[in-house]
């Protein structure tokens, strides 16, 4: 099934997509021009392949569906996503995967600021975000669970892999960073350590998938060592208050 988004507004496009998805499992949308909320709350078993640039909140509350973008995406991809898969063959804007609880997001290139804010996990739900390029400021702020991987590929020598205020208020989950960690950007309550065996396996699994998706070389990526950022306390604000 193939349709063209063109210049129509998001409401008519999304209505058309919902209607078509009631009878089809996979839709290709051409000429996407910034229409918002594409694939919002889309269920498991449904797939959207997007050509062009989808607008903000693509895949918000995604409910198990799969979205692949052959191009760049804008802000708030996978906002409060509950499960499924998002693959972006390009860059993405701010607040990638805000408060996502399950599923996977793979971004070939860079992510803007505040990626992975307040990601969380629950029972066997475990969200994973892989960013191929660099990540902007406030990466993983308030992160409460899940896995965030930043590869920092294709960056200028003077560019840090993560931006300022990385992992502020983080109280759960893990971030794996490739190569030197720019300590001056890392929040004081975060400890930097090496990956254990289990974590290494998880990392390898994700890198393999990244390489298959984007045709990159595993060997090249693994040439550099990875470090783990994790909260030194799961209760960063435990002693802030006095009961009155």
């Amino acid at each position, binding site marked *: 099934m193939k349709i063209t988004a063109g210049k129509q507004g998001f409401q008519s496009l*999304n209505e058309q997509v*919902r209607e078509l998805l009631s009878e089809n499992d996979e839709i290709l949308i051409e000429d996407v021009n910034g229409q918002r909320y594409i694939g919002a*709350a889309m269920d498991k078993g449904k797939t959207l392949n997007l050509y062009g640039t989808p607008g903000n909140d693509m895949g918000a509350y995604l409910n198990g569906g799969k979205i692949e973008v052959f191009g760049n995406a804008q802000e*708030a991809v996978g906002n409060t996503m509950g499960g499924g898969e998002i693959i972006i063959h390009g860059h993405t804007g701010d607040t990638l995967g805000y*408060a996502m609880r399950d599923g996977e997001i793979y971004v070939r290139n860079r992510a803007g600021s505040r990626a992975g*804010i307040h990601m969380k996990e629950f029972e066997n739900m475990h969200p994973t975000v892989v960013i191929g390029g660099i990540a902007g400021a406030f990466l993983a702020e308030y992160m409460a669970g899940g896995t965030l991987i930043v590869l920092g590929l294709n960056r200028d020598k003077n560019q840090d892999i993560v931006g300022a205020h990385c992992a502020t208020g983080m109280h759960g989950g893990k971030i794996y960073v490739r190569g030197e960690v720019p300590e001056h950007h890392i929040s004081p309550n975060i400890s930097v350590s090496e990956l254990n065996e289990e974590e290494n396996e998880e990392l390898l699994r994700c890198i393999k998938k990244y390489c298959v998706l984007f045709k990159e070389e595993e060997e090249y990526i693994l040439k550099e060592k990875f470090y783990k950022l994790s909260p030194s306390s799961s209760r960063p604000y*435990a002693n802030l208050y006095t009961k009155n």
Partner: protein
Amino acid sequence: MNYTVPEFEVERNINRCISCGACVRQCSYEVHYFDDDGKTVLADESKCVACHRCAAICPTRAIKIKKYDMAYKEHSNWTPVMQKEINLQAATGGVLLSGMSNNKPYPIYWDKILLNASQVTNPSIDPLREPMEIRTFLGRKPEKLEFNENGELKTKLPPQIQLETPIMFSAMSFGSISFNAQKSLAMAAKELGTLFNTGEGGLHPKLEEFKDYAVVQVASGRFGVHKGYLESGRFIEIKIGQGAKPGIGGHLPGEKVTVEVSNARMIPVGSDAISPAPHHDIYSIEDLRQLIWSLKEATQYKKPVAVKIAAVHNCSAIVSGVARAGADIIVMDGFRGGTGAAPTRIRDNVGIPIELALAAVDKRLRDESIRNTVSLVAAGSFRNSADIVKAIALGADAVYVASAPLIAMGCHMCQQCHSGKCNWGIATQRPDLVKRLNPEIMYKRVVNLIDAWNHEIKEMLGGMGLNSIDSLRGNRLMLRGIGLTEKELEILGISHAGE
């Protein structure tokens, strides 16, 4: 050395005390204890919070809680409370944390507004004999209605919420209150034909059966928010702010995240549930618009989307922006609203009274000709039915109440909700305390309260010669101020008594 003296004193009438130990077992603050002889009951009053549980439970009425009678050298600036709070902070270096609501003696405008009644002309109506409509609809209203030649409605109405009373129960999450307390509210909402609100704690699976009576909240932590949750609620409420703590987020400490709470919030047991101060995808009205529309898209335009803000200084401009961003319902929460926990200084110093905010906002939306695009819900302390009638005349479509139904369930305003030790089984997750609150009994008390208020509202309406609550909405001619300044009257948009 403890620098402070107790606030309360436990007076036990030893002629009445039968050493049954009920108070020892019931006080979660561990005030009462048996002496070494196993018979004499003693008390460590320094821990008492005056929740009256022991006094209520004592079979011989032997217990009285009194103010600790300690003389201070008179000083109207450095009151005992000020001194106590300084000592607490000197000892710990912590931010003062309180529960419930602003307890400072700011003006309560409800008590300075009087209602009208008809005399001779436009006679009053007796609600016992004549039908009196208090049914309330919330949701965006269209600009105009169009009908076809058969008189059927052609205009497609935006989703509307039908309530059998203008009174709803405001957001109290499972986590801040107990399961039994939330269930009591859910049961009461069902029986009354109104709604309860899950707060940001998600919807507990055992309350699924009440989903048609639930408002589901989406707050900055997005706890428990998923497709099924959004689809369960009658409407979705985006929480931007709360009257008890405008401008700051929430923080449910790990100790309160029990297995049950973790299931509803969808976070691991024992982990802190931190709601950041802002939604990090909302830094502007345009961003808020984006969240509103993403929720509409996710629920296929079947649910109204509400936005809740705290009543603050420039709230009329904010509400105007929120209305234009596409909200169907706007909730404003005044500075007397309650909370499970808030920093004391914020609870007591930030925000403005709902009376002033409501009047200002209703006027602003009318002046901009967009009042019909949203329903206004006022919150932030309604103590009785007269407060509610006055709020509706000031422009509210409906109100949210929370503290009043909690009092109906046993709350004694001890303001220790943040301690997690609520002796009345309300603001606690301790199983031994939670089971003290029996939903089968408590829901009925809440229903009784709202039934009584509904009837009183009808009586007041009838007295004004009105037979429908719609005729009262924004009808400020029914209000007069008493003892108010020109400026206050101007903001409230009412005349002074005698005018």
